[in-house]
């Protein structure tokens, strides 16, 4: 008992407060999203908001119980939890129930559970466990492979469930690895790849090439100031251009070959001269890799887009980019979402006064698109409040992470951070129309027991570890 009272004295109550505010705000917005004149009571358990209330109560119980668990339990059982969860993910493929085209649910009586939600938690614990091994050096190829496998297993299993959104969440662990020492280039390359992918869809390839070459020149300039041996790379550039032309020719891509040659050469010449004169260029390998990587992305876009992505993903991306005006499916959703949020104005239309989110046809109204209701009924002020809470929570998690004495706890905390950041970014980004529609929930807001419980567990394990940070030493 003594230890229990101790923990309540030591937990970070500010995080608990943010948590409660988010959960409560989520609940009343689900009420508003599903609200129908004929069913008034927010406690009506036949309605989504009534069910959410039950789940919230259950989440509180779960959170409380987690605080009582010995802090060492999580690190000791990480491997076991991870293995068990992966088995569940495999099992759901075989015995699960298909809902909206994704076979990712277990149905036990009237309760539906989504193992993929819980897999995030298991993976985070597992990653923390592996990274906190003594003398673990992240740059070692073997270790990277090890980490890669931990992530790829759940990703593959979830992709097989046809739930791309939940699979993409695992890419957010890059941030954790970055914090633990992985080179910053992974972030740059990640951002560049995404930017390129989008740019290639949007613009004619020639503009993309121009953009590529220019941005890549900027990198080159920076390097040229510090590095030597620029001379060798003039050869590489010419060679690149030549191969580019050859590819263009044999694959019948139909670009003007002169352009392909002259643009890189012409643009590079002065800087090559400059680098040559200073004889400082050294990291030419990087430059070439980036160059070819970028060209590769540019040319693979069509292939990935048309062959790898499924129809509904293509549609969502197209909608986002405004390429096809699709008022039927996702595009309509996003459009309506933007309209709903936009129509909220500065102060919003008021609680339950929203008109745009009042129809029940979009199943995502109370789940993935719940932020629309916030935007419409509470306006910019409401959006500001919610974003402020989320960013506040994220910063708070970093603060907690950094004050941990054990690597395990720090990595776990950054894992929580990364997953929350990903959900927050993707979900709100899609409702306000700046990211493609990827169906993942907004933590604590979206309707659904599984996701609420998992995010609750994430936070409360973090609080538990944080409360015992002086005891938990690596």
């Amino acid at each position: 008992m003594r230890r229990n009272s101790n923990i309540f004295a030591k937990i970070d109550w500010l995080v608990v407060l943010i948590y409660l505010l988010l959960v409560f705000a989520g609940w009343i917005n689900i009420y508003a999203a599903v609200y129908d004149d004929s069913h008034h009571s927010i406690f009506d358990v036949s309605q989504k908001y009534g069910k959410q209330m039950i789940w919230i109560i259950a989440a509180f119980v779960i959170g409380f119980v987690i605080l009582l668990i010995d802090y060492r339990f999580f690190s000791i059982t990480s491997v076991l939890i991870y293995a068990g969860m992966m088995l569940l993910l495999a099992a759901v493929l075989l015995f699960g129930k298909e809902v909206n085209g994704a076979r990712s649910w277990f149905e036990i009586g009237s309760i539906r559970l989504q193992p993929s939600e819980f897999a995030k938690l298991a993976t985070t614990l597992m990653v923390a466990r592996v990274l906190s091994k003594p003398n673990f050096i992240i740059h070692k190829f073997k270790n990277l492979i090890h980490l890669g496998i931990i992530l790829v297993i759940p990703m593959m299993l979830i992709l097989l469930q046809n739930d791309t959104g939940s699979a993409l969440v695992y890419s957010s662990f890059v941030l954790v690895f970055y914090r633990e020492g992985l080179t910053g280039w992974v972030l740059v390359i990640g951002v560049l790849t995404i930017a390129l992918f989008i740019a290639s869809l949007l613009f004619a390839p020639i503009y993309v090439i121009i953009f590529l070459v220019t941005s890549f020149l900027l990198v080159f300039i920076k390097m040229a100031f510090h590095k030597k041996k620029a001379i060798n790379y003039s050869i590489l550039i010419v060679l690149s251009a030549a191969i580019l032309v050859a590819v263009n020719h044999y694959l019948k891509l139909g670009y003007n070959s002169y352009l392909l040659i002259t643009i890189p050469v012409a643009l590079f010449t002065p800087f090559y001269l400059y680098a040559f004169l200073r004889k400082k260029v050294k990291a030419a390998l990087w430059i070439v890799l980036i160059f070819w990587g970028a060209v590769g992305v540019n040319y693979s876009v069509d292939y990935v887009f048309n062959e790898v992505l499924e129809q509904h993903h293509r549609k969502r991306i197209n909608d986002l980019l405004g390429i096809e005006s699709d008022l039927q499916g996702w595009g309509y959703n996003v459009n309506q979402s933007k309209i709903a949020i936009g129509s909220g104005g500065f102060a919003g239309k008021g609680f339950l006064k929203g008109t745009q989110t009042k129809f029940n046809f979009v199943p995502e109204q109370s789940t993935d698109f719940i932020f629309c209701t916030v935007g419409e009924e509470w306006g910019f002020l409401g959006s500001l409040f919610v974003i402020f809470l989320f960013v506040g929570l994220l910063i708070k998690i970093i603060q907690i992470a950094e004050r941990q004495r054990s690597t395990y706890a720090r990595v776990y905390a950054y894992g929580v951070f990364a997953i929350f950041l990903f959900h927050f970014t993707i979900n709100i980004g899609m409702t306000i129309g700046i990211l493609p529609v990827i169906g993942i929930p907004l933590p604590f807001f979206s309707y659904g027991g599984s996701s609420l419980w998992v995010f609750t567990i994430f936070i409360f394990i973090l609080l538990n570890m944080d409360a015992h940070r002086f005891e938990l030493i690596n």
Partner: protein
Amino acid sequence: MQKYSNRKFVIGAIAIIIGIVYLSRLFWVQVVDSTYKLNSEKNSIRREEQFSARGLVFDRNGELIVHNMAVYDLMIVPRQVSQFDTVELCQTIGIDIPFLRKQISKARRHSMFKSYKIVHQIPDTVYAVLQEKLYKYPGFFVQARTLRKYPYNVAANVLGYVSEVPDRIVKRDNYYKSGDYIGFSGIERSYEEVLRGKKGVQFNLIDVHNRKKGSYANGKYDTIPQIGGNLVSSIDIELQQYGELLLKDKIGSIVAIEPSSGEILALVTAPTYSPSDMVGRLRSENYPILIRDPLKPLFNRATMAQYPPGSTFKMLTGLIGLQEKVLTPSQHYSCYGGYFSKARPIACHHHRPSLDLAEALQMSCNAYFCHVFRNFMEKPGFANPDSALTRWLKHVHSFGFGTHLGTDLESELKGILPSVESYNRIYNGSWNALTLLSLSIGQGEIAITPLQLANYTAAIANRGFYYTPHIIKDIDGNGPIDRFKERKYTTIDSAYFEDVIKGMYLAVNGGWGNGGTASIAQINGIDFNGKTGTAQNPHGENHSIFVGFAPLTNPKIAIAVIVENAGYGSTWAAPIASLMAEKFLTDTVKRKSLEERVVNKNLLDRGEKEQ
């Protein structure tokens, strides 16, 4: 690991930058850029129900008797209503401003988001004008509906009417929404599910000018309305019309059945009303008048009025006697002005003193059937009067008396039959054949509906069986309801019927001079067989009753007529039945003077005088 500690700033910056980017975007979308606010107005989604036209109804000869005409309901979605010119709107549709205000506030109370009907059944001429101006009234829209139309304007009691669905049904059945229409009586009610079809729902995008921009989500959530099924009624609409003409200014009913199928050829109640008086807005004017009318035109006498069958019941008394072997057709009983027992003497009118069964029916001798009844009740086979009465009731029931026939007509009453228990109660257990004697001639504790009487006649015409009477012979090409195809046998062997029918033949065709009580019903060239009856009426003049069928073999029509306060069966009921049979069988009525006499007779004042 402290060496990477500074990376927390990069990571924190990512979170903050995303927060700032999102907030700027939100600020742009929500505060600066007004296109989304306009868009929001342009993008209202309106749920419109697509009503399917109700099914049509044809008569047995393929005449269209019920069809549809288009009208328009003005609807609003209160949330979408903004400033508009109330005066102009009211002028256009011809309503006053306080009414409009009242309706709008009703709609607001109902729901801010759901559509609500504020003006009902705007005729298409008004709609044409309104449609042009509708863009000025955001939040208002028009929903097309159909109203019933009746080319013959008769048979209101059969066809029934359609009206707005009452709240209690909305609560019970989620197919209906407040403001929908539902068949409320007659076949509109009993065949509601066939006639209504299935309504569809359309979600439409509406722009700021209250115009449809297209369907929401390309119609993904829409459902297509299904047109209601058509019905073919067994009614002969011209016969029905003729029946209503004959009962003009009278109170009573006519029910005609085709014995070989149970199809109802005519089901007339009088007084009645015109079905088009109950359509649309007219109903709210006419309904209160009709409901207050002391003659109860809304009361369907053909299925709900209950009368003692009187002498028309004598065939059954005779049949039971024959079946139970307490009577042979040649059995003679003498009658000297009645049947005199200590308990209750039953008088008879003047006729030849000694008669056999057929003659007793021809001349409607009361004494004869008292004898038959008493012989039955006191038959040695029965242990006590209880078991005798039980057996008697079994026979009577088998003709469809004292029970719901199970027709497809709504609100059919079952009539009244005595029971062993009721007699035990009334007479403290001490009763016998003499106590019940009046049952033998269709008086006393017995009451039947005109429909039951016609069915009974059909059973006699069929020599021992009937089909459950019904008004719809075909549902959307699939024939009638299955149970109407089943023969229902009476407990009387068919061989016994001929002797009774002979009596009915003689009653009509035996000649006035020979004591035929229904000679007035005789039709040239047609073997019309019938029996008069008189139901005692303690409140006024007796009710005139007649049952009959024609022709003798392969009967085509069985008919029962009851005219209230009209005296003897032969005076009014018999000629009406006869004219109906003639009309049905020959298509033209040759006895114009009889027809004229019947049509012009007003019997309405007779009942009231004595009340």
